[in-house]
């Protein structure tokens, strides 16, 4: 690469970029203005809401024989609330939809433990108005009341409890309660855990789907508990306790984390997401324009005939995008500093960031690879797409994908000292989190940076290859297939079909009750999705079913190989799973719970075999090694083809920890399909593998506990079986050559 040339190209790019009013406005000015607008919007809305809440008067009613005592309790609570400092402290529950469904709020024993006295008073100013209500539940329903209290005397409550207990035992009995009691019996029953006989009850009825009802009732319950706490302390004093009950079992906390580290705990998680988001939004407009826009305007062709190398063009464009990305991110950081740092807008106390200069430096150094990778990726899609509009289409998936990778920093147990260090973007996200809590793992930081730079380099090289691609420079549009329709269109549509089937498999069970049962799900997935889907694809695209399903005879030796593969695939899989757990450690409990759900013991063996081995072996193979492989085999080179079909097969098994073993299985079966060109050995292998696995599980054989030497013995068998397949191969017809550049390679 020639530095002078790149410099010339770079200056030219920058000049054109800055003369483009649209890019300047959209990617630079607008974000700079939008950020404070959002911040102020939230600030304004928060204050407005706060004011509204402060001026709300919650309407409630009290019914029941014990009502007067409860009123007195409330009155005591209110005087205490009024006497306390009326500071406005944000309620955590503000605007959190998940919180609203929290049945922990629904009374119950937990609400009866004395809250620890933290010393600071965080009560809300709020006013309550008691109103008369003859039919409180219908008034609550109609919204005339925010909530109401039912006050029962001790004896009333006792008889109600008795009736309830009788009803409970008449049913199956409440599972939760019994376990809790079982444990409590070991310790001792206390005030906090259970109501003693004769103690009166006040039960607050509210509607959690109404904000005022939820808030008001929670506030009033707080007041009552506060008053009760005082009353209890008073009672203890009267019975002769001299000291303040708050002094009992004094609890103090020591935090080994510095305040900066503690603040970094939150900030370190948000920072990578924020940075990647800013980089993406900032760089995308410039990137989309840089190659795709030039292609569309026709000026790219001109540039390609000049005596610069493609990698130089790409490097200059990359530098341009990178400059924009860096500028935007720094400008936005400055922007945030101005508004947040200088106190125009307050941050929550726990977000009070205190970052050392060293941390800032390290963060910046870690951010540069991110900017490089993001801009390379954007450049790549820009180089791949034919037009500006096409680039925009790819932007959303790229955006979401990057965000998902960045979210790796949110996974609490993942440390940089793991395989994550080589996963681009995810590694920096984890690294930033660790840096922000003061943990500098220098070797791993270097590994992470190196892997990022490698990724960026590969993408740049790929981008410069894109410029050689005919698709981009020749005018031929590939949409002729769209006009032809039918079989010609199938390779372009096959992934969409599978995406659709996948979406159905994911969504259907949670919306159709019948599918929550194992048989229902089995029948639906096997016949409703895979079988019907395969038939539909053949029908709609007018495919030759023999070809589409790879109905071809095989040599007899193949069957021997497959029979050897059945056990050895499973045993080799143990290694794969072991390897994957290094990367994604899953808690044992989760796996066990999952296994028992998936592999029920209460079915007869023949039924399990039918549902778990035979039908998947036939129907899933039709879909994956039949149609999917048929659709993709002219589009991908064999190695990639095998991996892609395997991964898609794995993704259909939803849960993350199942994906790795099933992807492995999918890869092995697809290899068989590619080598034999036939679906039948795949069906045998799939069904055999599943049957073998279930039999082992059924009879409690735990291969994981076998000595590793025994498992190692299996490897030669596995290799031998694959060798047999290779030796007697009848390859899948029409595959692309293995490597690029082979003579007669149509994709070259």
């Amino acid at each position, binding site marked *: 690469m020639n530095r002078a*040339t790149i410099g*010339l*190209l770079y200056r*030219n790019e920058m*000049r*054109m970029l800055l*003369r*483009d009013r649209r890019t300047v406005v959209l990617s630079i000015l607008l974000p700079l203005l939008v950020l404070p607008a959002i911040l102020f919007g939230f600030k304004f809305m928060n204050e407005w809401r706060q004011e509204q809440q402060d001026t709300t008067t919650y309407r409630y009613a009290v019914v029941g024989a014990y009502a007067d005592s409860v009123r007195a309790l409330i009155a005591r609570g209110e005087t205490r609330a009024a006497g306390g400092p009326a500071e406005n402290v944000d309620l955590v529950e503000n605007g959190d939809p998940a919180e609203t469904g929290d049945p922990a709020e629904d009374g119950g024993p937990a609400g009866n433990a004395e809250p620890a006295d933290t010393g600071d008073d965080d009560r809300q100013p709020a006013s309550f108005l008691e109103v008369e209500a003859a039919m409180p539940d219908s008034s609550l329903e109609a919204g005339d009341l925010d909530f109401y209290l039912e006050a029962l005397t001790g004896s009333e409550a006792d008889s109600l409890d008795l009736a309830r207990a009788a009803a409970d035992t008449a049913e199956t009995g409440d599972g939760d309660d019994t376990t809790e009691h079982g444990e409590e019996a070991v310790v001792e029953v206390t005030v906090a855990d259970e109501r003693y006989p004769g103690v009166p009850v006040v039960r607050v009825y509210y509607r959690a789907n109404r904000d005022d009802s939820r808030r008001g009732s929670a506030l009033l319950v707080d007041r009552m508990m506060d008053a009760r706490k005082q009353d209890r302390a008073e009672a203890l004093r009267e019975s002769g306790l001299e000291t303040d009950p708050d002094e009992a079992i004094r609890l103090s906390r020591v935090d080994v984390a510095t305040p900066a580290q503690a603040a970094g705990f939150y900030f370190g998680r948000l920072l990578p997401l924020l940075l990647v988001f800013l980089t993406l939004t900032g760089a995308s407009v410039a990137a989309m324009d840089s190659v795709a826009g030039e292609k569309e*305007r*026709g*000026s790219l*062709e*001109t*540039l*390609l*005939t*000049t*005596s*610069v*190398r493609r990698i130089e063009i790409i490097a200059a464009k990359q530098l341009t995008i990178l400059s924009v990305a860096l500028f935007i991110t720094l400008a936005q950081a400055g922007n945030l500093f101005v508004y947040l740092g200088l106190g125009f807008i307050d941050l929550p106390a726990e977000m009070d960031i205190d970052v050392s200069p060293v941390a800032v430096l390290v963060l910046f150094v870690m951010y540069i690879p991110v900017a490089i990778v993001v801009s390379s990726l954007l450049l790549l899609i820009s180089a791949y797409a034919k037009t500006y509009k096409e680039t925009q289409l790819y932007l959303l998936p790229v955006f979401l994908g990057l965000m998902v990778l960045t979210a790796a920093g949110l996974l609490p147990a993942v440390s940089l000292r793991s395989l994550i260090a080589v996963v681009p973007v995810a590694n920096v996200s984890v690294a930033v989190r660790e840096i922000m809590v003061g943990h500098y793992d220098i070797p791993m930081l270097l590994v992470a940076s190196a892997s990022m730079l490698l990724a960026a380099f590969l993408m740049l090289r790929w981008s410069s290859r894109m410029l*050689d691609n*005919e698709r981009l*420079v*020749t*005018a*031929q549009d*590939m949409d*002729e*297939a769209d006009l*032809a329709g039918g079989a*010609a*269109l199938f*390779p*372009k549509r096959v992934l969409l079909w599978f995406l659709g089937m996948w979406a159905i498999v994911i969504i259907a069970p949670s919306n159709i009750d019948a599918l929550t049962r194992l048989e229902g799900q089995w029948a639906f997935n096997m016949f409703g999705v895979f079988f019907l889907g395969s038939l539909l694809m053949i029908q709609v695209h007018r495919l030759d079913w023999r070809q589409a399903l790879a109905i071809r005879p095989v040599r007899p030796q193949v069957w021997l190989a497959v029979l050897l593969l059945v056990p050895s695939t499973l045993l080799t899989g143990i290694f794969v799973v072991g390897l994957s757990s290094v990367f994604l450690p899953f808690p044992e409990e989760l796996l066990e719970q999952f296994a028992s759900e998936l592999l029920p013991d209460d079915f007869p063996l023949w039924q399990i075999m039918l549902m778990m081995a035979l039908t998947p072996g036939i129907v899933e193979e039709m879909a994956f090694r039949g149609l999917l492989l048929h659709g993709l085999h*002219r*589009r991908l080179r064999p190695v990639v083809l095998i991996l892609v079909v395997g991964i898609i097969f794995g993704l259909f098994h939803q849960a993350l920890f199942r994906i790795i073993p099933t992807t492995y299985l999918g890869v092995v079966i697809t290899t068989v399909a590619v080598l034999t060109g036939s679906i039948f050995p795949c069906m045998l292998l799939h069904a055999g593998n599943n049957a073998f696995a279930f039999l082992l599980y059924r009879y409690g054989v735990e291969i994981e506990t076998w000595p590793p030497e025994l498992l190692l013995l299996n490897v030669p068998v596995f290799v031998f079986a694959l060798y047999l397949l290779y030796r007697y191969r009848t390859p899948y017809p029409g595959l692309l050559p293995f490597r690029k550049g082979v003579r007669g390679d*149509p*994709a*070259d």
Partner: protein
Amino acid sequence: MTTVNDPVFVKDLTKTYYDESRGSVHAVRQIGFTCNPGEIFGLLGANGAGKTTTLRMLTTILKPSAGTAKIMGYDVAEEPVKVRRHVGFYSATTALYPRLTARETIEFFARINGYDASRTPARVDELVERFGIEEYARARIDKLSSGMKQKVAIARTLAHDPPILVFDEPTVGLDVLNALEMQAILTELKAQGKTILFSTHIMSEAEKLCDRIAIIHEGRILASGTLEALRERTGAHYLEDIFVSFIQEAA
């Protein structure tokens, strides 16, 4: 027979690409020709005959699937940068940067093609003067009319003073006056000693300008030679008739 002296040497040049729906597409099949120094060589063919693909391979935009092509002795596949340094490529379909001015454009392409930095301003002045674009040399390209843009585009093609010029259908979409101007430029360039390779589907243009002509059809060269030689071979006088008779012969 290959010598460094041939400005353009093409042998068995083939371009095949893969299309998901159509399978392998043979755009250019084993064509071969040579251009002599200082001549205008015309590629004549109907739309979709493979002219543009051929010229794109010669200017290294596309990579040949097979065969060789050399520009000033440099192989297009092996030394693309050197090839491009010696070629100016003009196409009616390629555009200019709308946000640069005419001067900036010419300067940029001179420099990027390795023209000596100290001589660049003089070269730019010379071209601006030659094409009469002084008045709008400092205006942005997107403000120019199509005729003005065409002049700037030619100027930028010549910016690095290449010995070989490739014109891909240069007169497509031009009005008569502009087309004539273009033809005059080609003749003038020839007089300066440049070797010119140009493609067209307009018979009269080829007849008028070319020293030698190759007739290309469905990716193959059906015939090539001087107009006289072609007349002799077919017995027809007008190029149109010559063209049709070769195509009929091929079919």
